[in-house]
């Protein structure tokens, strides 16, 4: 006899949860930070997610789109997002104010393999919106500092005003247990005190890295991958310890709509986190 027990007690995975915007402000001209809380208190506190996962956010009348969760599961209750304005949904999100409602469902995706990363050194390289998923990792590592070896952050932006979460990262520089290197391609302010140059110029600052026990996490604009990957391979970091998150068009997040299909996988289920090995052995990944 077939097991048909799952009958009427299904949960509708497409129904969002109403959530309230608690705080929102501009990070850069076209990127805003959003702190949201699921309206139902119990659901807000039991929303379990992993670093690197994403959620679908919907705005009434505009639609729904996927966004990386930028907060860390080690600080439950509030969810944070960094959102860039680029089209219908994101423009609608930008118009929302504190206390306005959005819909949220998730979390989706595989997330970063925390279990494997534990006990190892973590090298995070981010650029542009790559800060969104990787901030989650960084905060998680810092909240569970004894579970990881060295934690190194390399963050690059075109100019100071375009560096996402600039103040937050600058203040992290004071921490002794984090190696934090920030760089801008060009300083147009005259009072930038950190490194100047593309993000790869930060690599020489990392000393005595033990590649076999290092996990390198990369997220940024397409051009960044090309150059950063070269550096990471030069450092001899194993291909399956280089982790990156990839973007695909997504409509459902639950492996049904087909939009995020690559080869035989669905990015929303088996991604968005992939190893460099996945990327070179699976067609179409980048």
């Amino acid at each position, binding site marked *: 006899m077939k097991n048909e027990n*799952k*009958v009427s007690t*299904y*949960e*509708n*995975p*497409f*129904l*969002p949860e*109403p959530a309230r915007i608690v705080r929102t402000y501009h990070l850069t001209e076209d990127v805003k930070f959003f702190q949201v809380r699921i309206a139902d208190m119990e659901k807000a506190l039991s929303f379990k997610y992993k670093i690197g996962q994403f959620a679908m956010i*919907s705005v*009434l*009348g*505009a*639609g*729904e789109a996927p966004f990386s969760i930028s907060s860390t599961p080690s600080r439950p209750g509030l969810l944070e997002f960094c959102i*860039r304005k*680029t*089209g219908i949904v*994101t423009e609608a999100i930008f118009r929302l104010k504190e206390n306005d*409602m959005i*819909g949220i469902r998730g979390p989706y995706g595989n997330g970063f393999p925390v279990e494997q990363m534990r006990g190892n050194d973590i090298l995070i390289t981010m650029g542009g919106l790559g800060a969104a998923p990787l901030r989650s990792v960084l905060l998680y590592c810092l909240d569970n500092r004894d579970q990881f070896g060295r934690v190194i952050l390399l963050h690059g932006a075109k100019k100071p005003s375009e560096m996402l979460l600039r103040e937050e990262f600058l203040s992290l520089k004071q921490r002794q247990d984090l190696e934090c290197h920030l760089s801008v391609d060009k300083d147009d302010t005259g009072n930038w005190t950190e490194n100047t140059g593309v993000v790869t110029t930060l690599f020489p600052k990392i000393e005595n890295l033990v590649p076999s026990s290092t996990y390198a996490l990369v997220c940024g604009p*397409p051009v960044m991958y090309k150059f950063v990957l070269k550096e990471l391979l030069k450092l001899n970091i194993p291909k399956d310890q280089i982790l990156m998150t990839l*973007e*695909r*068009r997504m*409509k*459902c997040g*639950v*492996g*049904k*709509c*087909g*939009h995020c*299909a690559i*080869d*035989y996988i669905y990015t929303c*289920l088996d991604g968005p986190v992939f190893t460099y090995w996945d990327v070179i052995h699976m*067609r*179409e990944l980048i």
Partner: protein
Amino acid sequence: MKIVKLKKENLFPFLEEISKEADLWAPTKVESDRHKFQAIDDLDQIDIEYTRTILPPRKIILPPTINMFQASDKEYKEDFSHVSKKIIFGIHPCDLHGLLIMDNFFTHEFYDPYYMESRKNTLLLGHSCWPDENCLCKSTRTHIIKEGYDLFFSKIDDTYIVWIGSSKGDDLIRAKEDLFEEDISDKDIKKYTEWGDERDKAFQTEINFDSLRDLMELKYDDPLWKKVGNACLACGSCTNVCPTCNCYNIQDRPVLGENYSEIKRCWDACTLENYSEVAGGENFREKRSDRLKLWYTHKFQVYITEYGKPGCVGCGRCISTCPVDINVKTVGKSLDGEKVDSFWNRLDKEVTK
């Protein structure tokens, strides 16, 4: 399995009886030799002597557009108005296999209630068929079916051998028990097996699906794809007619004069231009050839790897539908080294992209 017999003249009385409890859908003739599944008011509309319908029966379970829910500031109201009790009569084995693939897909990892609630309320009454030159189901081994239906009607002359595939199917029979006979004679069995042998011989087209899985990998960069890509009109027809295509889009449609939106789910096609486009205008599959590769990877490779069966059930719809002759037959045979792509060659010269 339980098997009973039904005289041909008793079919309509039986359908009449069971359609009291549910909407009956069956194949009807649209024009010349084109058929479609349609909700039946009058049994005389049914034309069971068909080869393939324009759209597969999945359109009855998950129509091209449905409302998923109403969204307002305060709440989300689920909408399952597409779900009702239905009986689909006259489904061929390939399409039953197609629905089995759908069932599997929509319950894999996440449970999709919009498909499954509708599916659970739909009874499937299969019907035997006779292949034409576009039927590939013998190659995909979907020309026979042993599960996935509630009743299956094998027509032998003026009699139906009726295979009862589920408890619900059995209930249908019980509703009009006196129309059926229990005894299947040796003569019936002989006629049935002879019919089966004849039908087996009637298949005219064969494709080696076993080798296609590897060929998809090995010939990923074959010039063939460029030719096919140049010829493709990106019309999405192949996707809409295929019984194993499942892609869809979600849209938020504000209702005029109200303070809520209807969230709609509509069929989509991976062969369409902006299918994989993301923010910033970046399109991961701008080229038609890339999108077709995705489609054929899905049909030839992915399902075999995941489920041991190809994602094509051999219904032949893409063959009778694509305006420029791109289909599992021509692409499959070309990959397998046969020269069947002269048509695309010509297009290659005429169209430049």
